[in-house]
């Protein structure tokens, strides 16, 4: 187990290094941020001074080495646009994205698992069939368009919810600014979170249904029924526990995907998170922020994958962590 964690961590460092090289070279090969950042009226001397102050006059390998040197010390470069540390910009925006992704995950879980169980236990009923039809829609609907339609219905037509932005934030433990502690914060959060949750909701419904469908045919369920256990106990304990293994894995892996897809939702609802920062940075060719964002995201993904693998082995004793996986 310990060896597994060590090996995986080493692999992760290699992946991170390769990613940093690819992304750095790739991002730095396109466009010229000077054209965007400096007004066309600036004279040659101003131009050169600006290029030198951003470190853009050095050759690419020298730029990469100085970036790498800084990165090892936790400095991922300074934003061209905001002239502050790129990492700091991202860390400032991270709680907003995390809150959104967590809220979406909670919505998907508390709705998806019961609905999926229902559809799995009564596959031929009208409710079961409509749940499954709804889940196909959940897969097919383009996220950003659903977001627009939510705004149209709940903000423009009904006027119940604000159409964009994040509500007032309250510092949780005096550290992390969160918005779910106030009513206004909730009003801002609920619509983007629901929008982001849709895909995972559909996924969890399908997964739970398939699991329940399969588990009901197993001998241990027949045995539990033969013992005379109540229906409630058979479903709640015997069926549900065995469904949970794949469900937990998917929840874990999908959390990363949620952070990725939050880019779209954040843009639709003008939610001030990391994803919106990325889109703005791409538009402004703010290279350090793009590179820093990607490295942060890759790190998050690596950590999530590792945690899921460990959780998986903890939940299912049949799975042993070996060196071949990963």
């Amino acid at each position: 187990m310990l060896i597994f964690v060590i090996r995986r961590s080493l692999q992760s460092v290699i992946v991170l290094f390769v990613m940093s090289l690819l992304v750095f070279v790739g991002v730095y090969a396109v466009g010229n941020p000077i054209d965007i950042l400096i007004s066309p009226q600036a004279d040659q001397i101003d131009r050169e001074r600006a290029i030198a102050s951003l470190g853009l006059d050095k050759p690419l390998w020298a730029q990469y080495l100085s970036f790498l040197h800084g990165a090892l010390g936790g400095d991922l470069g300074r934003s061209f646009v905001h002239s502050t540390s790129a990492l700091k910009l991202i860390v400032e925006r991270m709680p907003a994205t995390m809150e959104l992704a967590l809220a979406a995950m909670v919505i998907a879980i508390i709705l998806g698992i019961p609905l999926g169980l229902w559809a799995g236990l009564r596959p031929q009923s009208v409710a079961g069939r409509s749940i499954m039809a709804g889940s196909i829609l959940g897969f097919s609907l383009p996220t950003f368009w659903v977001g627009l339609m939510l705004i149209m219905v709940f903000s423009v037509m009904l006027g119940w919810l604000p159409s964009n932005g994040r509500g007032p934030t309250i510092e949780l433990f005096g550290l992390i600014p969160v918005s779910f502690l106030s009513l206004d914060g909730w009003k801002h959060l609920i619509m983007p979170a629901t929008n982001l949750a849709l895909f995972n909701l559909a996924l969890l419904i399908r997964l739970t249904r398939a699991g329940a469908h399969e588990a009901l045919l197993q001998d241990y369920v027949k045995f539990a029924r033969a013992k005379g256990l109540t229906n409630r106990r058979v479903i709640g304990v015997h069926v549900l526990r065995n469904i949970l293994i794949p469900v937990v894995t998917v929840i874990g892996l999908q959390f990363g995907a949620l952070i990725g897809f939050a880019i779209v939702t954040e843009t639709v609802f003008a939610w001030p998170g990391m994803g919106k920062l990325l889109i703005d940075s791409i538009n402004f060719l703010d290279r350090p922020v793009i590179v820093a964002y990607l490295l942060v995201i890759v790190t998050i993904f690596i950590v999530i994958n590792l945690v899921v693998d460990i959780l998986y082995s903890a939940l299912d004793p049949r799975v042993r962590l070996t060196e071949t996986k990963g």
Partner: protein
Amino acid sequence: MNTVVTPVATPANESERAVETPFRRIVNDFFANPVAMFGFGLLCVLIFAAIFAPLISPQNPYDLAQIDVVDGKLPPGSKSPAGGTFWLGTDDQGRDMLSAIFYGLRISIAVGAISTVFALVIGLAMGLTAAYFGGRLETLIMRIVDIQLSFPTILIALILIAVLGQGTGKVITALVAVQWAYYARTVRSAALVEKRKEYIEAAKCLALSPARIVFRHLLPNCLPPLIVVATVQVAAAIALEATLSFLGLGLPITEPSLGLLIANGYQYLLSGKYWISFFPGIALLLTIVSINLVADQLRDVLNPRLQR
């Protein structure tokens, strides 16, 4: 087949069975499901509208002589000055939304189909290479696939757009780069199963060339799962392109896909002019749903375990 006929089996039934080719069986099975038939019909209508957009559109939405800003932002059902009706309203430039949607559908479907074909070919080559030759090459290819598939598609596409810059060709490149891994994985796992079967062994014993074995024997038997994945991926590519275009990082304004039409209507949504975003979204939704319905049925029909 012609040995013992059980008394219960009627001769008519037998002869019917005999002429049934695999292709005909698949077609028959496919249309046995009314939902799939609906999906297929809808898809045909959409593709027809896309191909013949210039012929069936009430106006050419990108011909400046035919549009007038005065007609801008008219609600659905308004009369046009030329005597026609804007059934789905007009956008801010006075374009008929119905015509814009036909043209947008054309671009969206074309981009989705082209990127799928390229991704399919690359993924197929990679997957077959990995499965047939094995060894270090296989480890390398599959490791790249694994790493790529552990990231959400939108993120990879955005990185590539950030690196490559914008433009139609670049969007297609990004879509191909995002999707090839799905095909490579599918082909490899199918090919690994087929490789161990006796017909491949027989082909090897006949001293056929590796190319012949791979393309004439291995490949056709790996196709069914690949067709299913390709169908699903066309829908995914269309959705992804729409998302990129919506974010302003996809196709240029000169190639107005459905995603761009929706993005264009975004700013008017808050003032209650819903139709500019709503109808292109419905067209996008119908396209994706119809493709998914077809894919769902193909999966059942092509799955040998579910065959009669």
